[in-house]
């Protein structure tokens, strides 16, 4: 039987690196006879036994005591009902389509649209909080969501409320515009997607007023631009820049695709 095995010495031999910078390869492999074959592990184990007998082990007894989590912990989403616009940005961004907009009565009894989240589908990615234009949607450090039925996992708008929301939970989407960098002013802007604006292709517009109806912040006003051949007024939407949150609702609902978002980059 020919001995074709090469010598195993486990040494770093390459010229591209320096073994002196490698703390592990510098010391190992050791001759195990010098550590008395199996004695060092046993001594190590005894050391830890002594340590954990004097102090407590690192384990925490979960149901009785809980680990501290920072405020930006991404548990279930939380909602400030009155701050919410019902714009549907969270619905648009949710990767698992866990969020739907439902009708809910607000404090005055008016029916408004508010998000409802199915926690069984939620992936806890935090996109809803990140893209919420008004920071109504937040992340919360609440993660114990077990229920007995799947129906119980569906959180309505009121149930999503979370006491003690603070600034850390309001995920801020800070971005820098590349045009800003080119202008030499690399400042961070909070939620810069809100400066995107819908733009009208007026040749397609049929003056149906749908965009005006779906706008959650009433930023769209139909302005008359003369009359058409039949004598009816031609109405084009005009967007109030101070109100618009760029929620894409008008773009999505336009029957003739006359609106599109012009991104500010």
């Amino acid at each position: 039987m020919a001995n074709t095995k090469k010598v195993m010495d486990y040494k770093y031999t390459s010229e591209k690196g320096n073994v002196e910078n490698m703390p592990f390869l510098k010391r190992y492999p050791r001759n195990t006879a010098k550590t008395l074959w199996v004695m060092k592990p046993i001594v190590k184990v005894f050391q830890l036994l002594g340590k954990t007998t004097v102090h407590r082990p690192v384990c925490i007894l979960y149901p009785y005591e809980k680990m501290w989590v920072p405020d930006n912990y991404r548990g279930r989403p939380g909602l400030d009902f009155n701050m919410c616009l019902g714009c549907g940005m969270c619905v648009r961004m949710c990767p698992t389509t866990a969020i739907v907009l439902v009708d809910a009565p607000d404090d005055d009894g008016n029916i408004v649209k508010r998000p409802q989240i199915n926690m069984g589908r939620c992936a806890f990615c935090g996109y809803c909080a990140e893209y919420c234009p008004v920071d109504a949607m937040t992340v919360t450090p609440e993660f114990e969501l077990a229920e007995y039925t799947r129906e119980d996992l569906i959180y309505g708008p009121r149930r999503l409320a979370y006491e003690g929301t603070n600034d850390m939970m309001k995920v801020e989407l800070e971005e820098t515009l590349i045009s800003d960098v080119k202008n030499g002013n690399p400042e961070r802007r909070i939620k810069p997607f809100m400066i995107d604006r819908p733009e009208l292709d007026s040749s397609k517009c049929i003056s149906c007023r749908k965009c005006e109806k779906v706008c959650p912040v009433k930023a769209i006003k139909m302005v008359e631009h003369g009359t058409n051949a039949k004598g009816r007024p031609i109405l084009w939407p005009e967007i109030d820049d101070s109100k618009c949150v760029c929620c894409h609702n008008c773009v999505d609902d336009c029957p003739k695709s006359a609106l599109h978002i012009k991104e500010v980059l």
Partner: protein
Amino acid sequence: MARDLMDIRAETDELTTDKMWVIMGPQHPFSHGLWTLKVELDGELVTDAEPIVGYLHRGWEKECENRSYAKIVPMADRLCYAASMTYSHLYCMTVEKALGLEVPEKAQYIRVVADEICRISSHLMWLAAVGTDLGNLTVFLWCMREREYWMDLFVRLCGARMTTNYPRIGGVRNDITELFDRDVDRCVQHFEKALWDIIALIDDSSIFLSRMKGTGILTCEQCVNLGITGPAMRGNGVDFDIRRDDPYEAYDKIDFEVPVLNDGDSYSRYMVRVEELFQSCKIITRAMQKIRAIGKNAPYRYKAPTNVPAGTAMCRLEDPRGESLMYLVADGSGKPYRLKVRSPIFTNVSASKPLVVGSRIADVPVIMAMIDMCLGETDR
């Protein structure tokens, strides 16, 4: 040792007994996920093997074709449960390449830090698995204990432990928080000390060494031909690391070493991975210094357009397990036309036959542990 026994068997035919196929998996303690290794046994010697993967196929690539670009980032986290950030990072890099967008310097360093934390937590999970595969639960629990500190760092960084959803197209989700800035150095220092304890349990124990040395030997040529990448490849003497040889993000500005060993058995692969743990600690410390030097108000995220122009982009990075690659075909809309993932494990596991043939069945878990199976990315 095992190979010599095979030679004896081959020479003396009268010793040859009936062979049997043993199906290890998909629910088997060694498989660390849902996959099957069929091995043909002659007594205790493995004479043939066949890996079967695909139990965890979720249609990930097809799913991506129905989602806007931003929504794929949390999905990319789910590719690999041990090192989630590397895949979302890779995805963001690919899309950025298609957009022609260069991320801010600070984001590059933050991504490097996050990637290395992922590497450490993934390698710790691997080390834990090595412990259980060799029948020692102490290594498992000590490694998992250390891993918790890194998971906690992720919580401080982005609010989630495993599915981080942290990289974004054009940068990262949020700036490093004060808590993260405070704890990362403490964590590195603690870990560098604690790791020596775990190493003493393994490298100073002759039983661990005798189990790992000389098993699963591949030559350098075999390794290249089989397409093995990552630490398994560097343990076989192939001196290649994408971080050093084809640097992405800020890796070319950070000083680190790539461990390479020529011996090509399980122990050399083990040593490469353990050394990578130490090197990752160094990278984290150095990258954090750079991040602090850049300043607090520097930009970390550029606004990326929603639609990606038509064209293709390919990007690769050094996963904890090997070379992962994504290929994007965009058609100008807000959704990818095709997104292909090349997972290192899918290629590495196909080498399981040359790896395990000739060893004993008791060595199969050890040898396959050195591949570090992760089924989420293999089956996609």
